């Protein structure tokens, strides 16, 4: 597989469909697993790492339904290609930046990926568009079983699945849902919401790009505890809380429409305008503006753009994607110009039939 082929598509988690997809971007689950016959990564020799990779690849390749998986040797990839996989969330940042033999097997629809030699020997990850944790669990449970038929996992009667870090022991499972919460941010209610999530033991993370500024009002909610609760209980905890957040966000949006329709429309239209006309634009500003436009589409304030198109712009304007799509390496300044060009091409093309001035 060529990464360039992936660049043009959108991948499962940005498909922009699925339940509650106006607010829930994606649902994902990951399982941490280790092979019983090897030390954890920290104590692995180069030989151990190579052998773990060989063993796991052999077994993965033997699975009938996985004949079309792509194998990417992360260790020998160029920086821009590793960054590209991180942007698509097919590998973790840690996996990208680690050293030594490591790889990833990717499902052609990008619904799951199998990271080998991450912090644990194997990290299975399943992604689903919208809010759909039960499908994600059914799929990852099945994937886990297919692998477990062939290998012996490190497992302890009392501690469950053994992991390199005690923070993951037990189920080895992290359940996370990515939400788009612009109205809660505008109405300054988001802090209150997050305080209460922390209280019930859930982690909240902003989505970050190149720099360290939070961008685009995207937040990821996930479980912290992995031991002492079953997979179903961990999923239920997130599944119970997400509809509450969706409800808050919807009410905040209604409030904005009711109380400050003009301001809201102005904000959305300006964001759209800048994206269509900027000559150079950073990835942070792009995310920030696309976030407003996304809310505008969902509220019916922008009618000539659809969510899947917008999602494509989110991913395609990321630094490594821009460079892969363009086919050349670009420094920050040139990326900002290329990003503005890309946005103009894709947003103006859509306006071809209508007069953008009328909006």
């Amino acid at each position, binding site marked *: 597989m060529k990464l360039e082929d992936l660049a043009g598509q959108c991948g499962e988690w940005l498909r922009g469909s699925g339940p509650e997809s106006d607010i829930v971007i994606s649902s994902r689950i990951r399982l941490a697993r280790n092979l019983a016959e090897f*030390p954890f990564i920290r104590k692995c020799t180069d030989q151990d790492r190579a052998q773990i990779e060989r063993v796991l690849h052999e077994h993965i390749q033997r699975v009938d339904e996985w004949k079309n998986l792509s194998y990417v040797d992360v260790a020998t990839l160029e920086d821009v290609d590793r960054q590209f996989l991180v942007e698509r969330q097919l590998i973790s940042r840690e996996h990208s930046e680690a050293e030594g033999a490591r790889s990833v097997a990717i499902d052609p629809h990008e619904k799951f990926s199998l990271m080998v030699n991450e912090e644990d020997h194997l990290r299975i990850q399943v992604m689903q568009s919208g809010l759909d944790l039960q499908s994600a669990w059914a799929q990852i449970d099945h994937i886990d079983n297919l692998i477990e038929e062939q290998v012996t996992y490190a*497992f302890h009667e009392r501690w469950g699945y053994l992991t390199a870090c005690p923070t993951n022991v037990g189920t080895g499972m992290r359940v996370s849902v990515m939400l788009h919460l612009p109205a809660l941010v505008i109405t300054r209610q988001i802090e209150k919401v997050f305080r209460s999530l922390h209280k019930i033991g859930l982690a909240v993370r902003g989505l970050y790009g190149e720099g360290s500024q939070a961008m685009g009002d995207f937040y990821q909610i996930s479980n912290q505890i992995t031991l002492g609760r079953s997979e179903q209980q961990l999923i239920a905890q997130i599944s119970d809380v997400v509809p509450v957040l969706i409800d808050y966000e919807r009410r905040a949006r209604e409030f904005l429409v009711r109380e400050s329709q003009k301001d809201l429309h102005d904000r959305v239209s300006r964001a759209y305008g800048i994206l269509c006309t900027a000559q150079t634009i950073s990835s942070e500003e792009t995310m920030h503006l696309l976030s407003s436009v996304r809310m505008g589409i969902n509220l019916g304030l922008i009618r000539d753009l659809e969510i899947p198109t917008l999602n494509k712009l989110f991913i395609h304007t990321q630094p490594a994607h821009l460079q892969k799509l363009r086919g050349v390496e670009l420094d920050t300044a040139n990326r900002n110009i290329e990003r503005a060009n890309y946005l103009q091409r894709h947003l103006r093309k859509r306006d071809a039939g209508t007069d953008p001035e009328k909006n």
Partner: protein
Amino acid sequence: MKCQYCEKPATFHITELTGDKPSELHFCEEHARIYLTQSSHEQQEPASSLAGVLAQHLKVGQTAEDLAQLDQRACPVCGVTFYEFRHAGRLGCPHDYVCFHDELMPLIVNIHGANEHVGKRPRHGAREAGDQTRLIQLRREMKEAVEQEDYEQASKLRDEIRRLEKQRGKQT
């Protein structure tokens, strides 16, 4: 950018929204986990880290000599010392959960508020787990024998490793 608590690169950037205004925190994965697994009052203490949590638990009822001794204890299978674990926050092999059981227990309870797995189990159970652990140990011993140029011992160990690997092959 470096982690706020150690020298590792910061790969986690967390927006903390519990204070008066949002603040941005930058952590390595280990410290991010620790940060996220602490309750809010503990988060204000700058010394909070896996090592910190451990140290707190270990201080209770233990003298400095006891601690120093504990730090030197090593897993017989992978050779990781307790000091190494404290420092890196990562264990060396599955057997560490057995040989450092008493030390890990309070730490795990502190992180998870539980001390027993209740979820999914491998369908095949923990089959031949003893042999698997033995493989880790034999491979390490072989590497050490090679390093000491004791090739006779190394080849003995290699034969034993092959025998165990073959057995494993038959069972799967």
